[in-house]
């Protein structure tokens, strides 16, 4: 397994160097804009804009930078297919579990290194932007990394299943489109049921009827939408927030485990073809 990890690290080294360079460029830009917000042209702007810009630059450097660093968690499943290494891999004294495990473990190592680098970036950003250290940000950065690791694991499972990069992209697109459509229809239905509490049916009433009904109640549509987000959506967000300590790790671990299982099965099934 170690041998395959070495191969993974060697083949993806250029990509990791590029992401590191992109991260450094982003950090430099954020720092330059911050300097401009203190000493330069941005500092001359009024209405609290320099502070806002400075604050945005801080978040971009810390969290945007973390996203870039975690993008370095990659694999060479497709190059393995193209080079014929996948066939050679089957001749090695390694089980399918070890072959997939090598990819997942390499990603985990990269995730660890990227997390450390993102933490260093956070500390530097705190120093440069003159902010107090917020321990919660450590957790947020780690959460971003874990989410990206899990998404990568899911993509890997799809690639193992589909074999061809084009097919893998298609399956991924279909998957995320289904999620998007599900979320859109779900939100629409949810919103309609909230409107029902005001005696309005979004699907049956046209805009004029809706406005008339809301006028009779003495509220505007904007208020209803605002209340929907405040009462309903935020209730769910708060619930998620309160339960995130177990919900997020369980979801990520579960999805990663399922992806690993699918990857191993797909690799075994390919042997049967």
């Amino acid at each position, binding site marked *: 397994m170690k*041998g395959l990890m070495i191969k993974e690290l060697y083949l993806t080294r250029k990509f990791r160097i590029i992401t590191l360079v992109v991260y450094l460029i982003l950090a430099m830009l954020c720092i330059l804009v911050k300097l401009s917000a203190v000493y330069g042209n941005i500092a001359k702007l009024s209405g609290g804009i320099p502070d806002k810009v400075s604050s945005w630059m801080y978040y971009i450097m810390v969290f945007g930078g973390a996203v870039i660093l975690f993008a370095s968690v990659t694999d*060479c499943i497709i190059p393995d297919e193209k080079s*014929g290494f996948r066939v050679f891999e089957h001749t090695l004294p390694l089980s399918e579990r070890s072959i997939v495990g090598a990819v997942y473990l390499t990603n985990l190592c990269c995730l660890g290194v990227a997390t450390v680098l993102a933490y260093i970036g956070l500390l530097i950003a705190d120093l440069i932007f003159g902010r107090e250290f917020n321990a919660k940000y450590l957790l947020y950065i780690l959460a971003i990394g874990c989410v990206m690791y899990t998404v990568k694991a899911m993509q890997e499972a799809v690639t193992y299943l589909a074999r061809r990069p084009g097919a893998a992209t298609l399956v991924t697109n279909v998957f995320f489109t289904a999620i998007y459509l599900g979320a859109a229809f779900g939100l629409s239905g949810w919103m309609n049921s909230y409107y029902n509490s005001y005696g309005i049916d979004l699907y049956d009433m046209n805009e004029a009827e809706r406005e008339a009904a809301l006028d009779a109640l003495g509220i505007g549509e904007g208020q209803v939408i605002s209340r929907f987000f405040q009462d309903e959506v935020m209730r769910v967000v708060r619930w998620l927030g309160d339960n995130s300590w177990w919900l997020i790790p369980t979801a990520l671990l579960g999805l990663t485990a399922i992806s690993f299982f699918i990857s191993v099965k797909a690799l075994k099934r390919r042997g049967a073809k």
Partner: protein
Amino acid sequence: MADYENAIEISGLTKKYDGFTLDNISFNVPRGSIMGFIGQNGAGKSTTINSLLGIIRPDSGSIRIFGKDLKENETEIKRDISAVFDELPFHEQLNARTLDKMLRRIFSGWSSEVFGSYLERFALPSKKPFSKFSKGMKMKLQIAAALSHGSKLLIMDEATTGLDPVVRNEILDIFMEYLQDEDNSILMSSHITSDLEKIADCVTFIDRGRILLTGYKDDILESHGIMKLGKSDYPSVAKEDFISARVTDHSAELLVADRAAAEKKYSGAVIDTATLDDIMIYYVNREKKEWR
């Protein structure tokens, strides 16, 4: 290593694809021998080899390697097997040094010294990416990697195809050296029957998913012969006495499977030695019986 008579024992191996079936094939590769696996394109050589290497799973049949069932002891068996393919199966960005680092951690018997000595012998650079290697260099690299972890069985799929005669000769010499160890065996599929004629101890012919012939090369070459006749004499030969016949305007050449019996029965006929190439061609045309 436990005692075993045959390095490979294949029995009733079947694999069905749409349009092709590897049909219940059986043959053995005796320990310490080199087996030539011959057949035309699409005959089933690669399917058989891929089954042996665990790249594909057969539908039925059994494969025993070193006397052990492949299905039950796959990982253990694969420690002592090396595979060489017609194309380099490594990423083009890799170099020999990285390959050494990688395979050292995969094969417990890997020797960096042996690998280094092969690189030196083949004049292969260790830091140059494989993308800059020629076809011959790539093949030598595969062989260097295959022989550097003390494997007992070398399985090659069209490994010498596309190589010039000098490189092929060099590689055949390496195989002969490898076979100096009596425990080592080779299964080598190739179109180039002249190579096999030179080095193989045994030969297996496969055609359209079926084994036509398997056995010691010398026995096969000795038992087969090309009977040369005038066209007018050709009808006097019974159809069951030959595999197939190449008939021209003036003459006919027939492959006979039992040369001694044919010499006895057709005493006036000239029967020449058949080459592996002849045997393959005549067998492939056996259903037509008569061809030009």
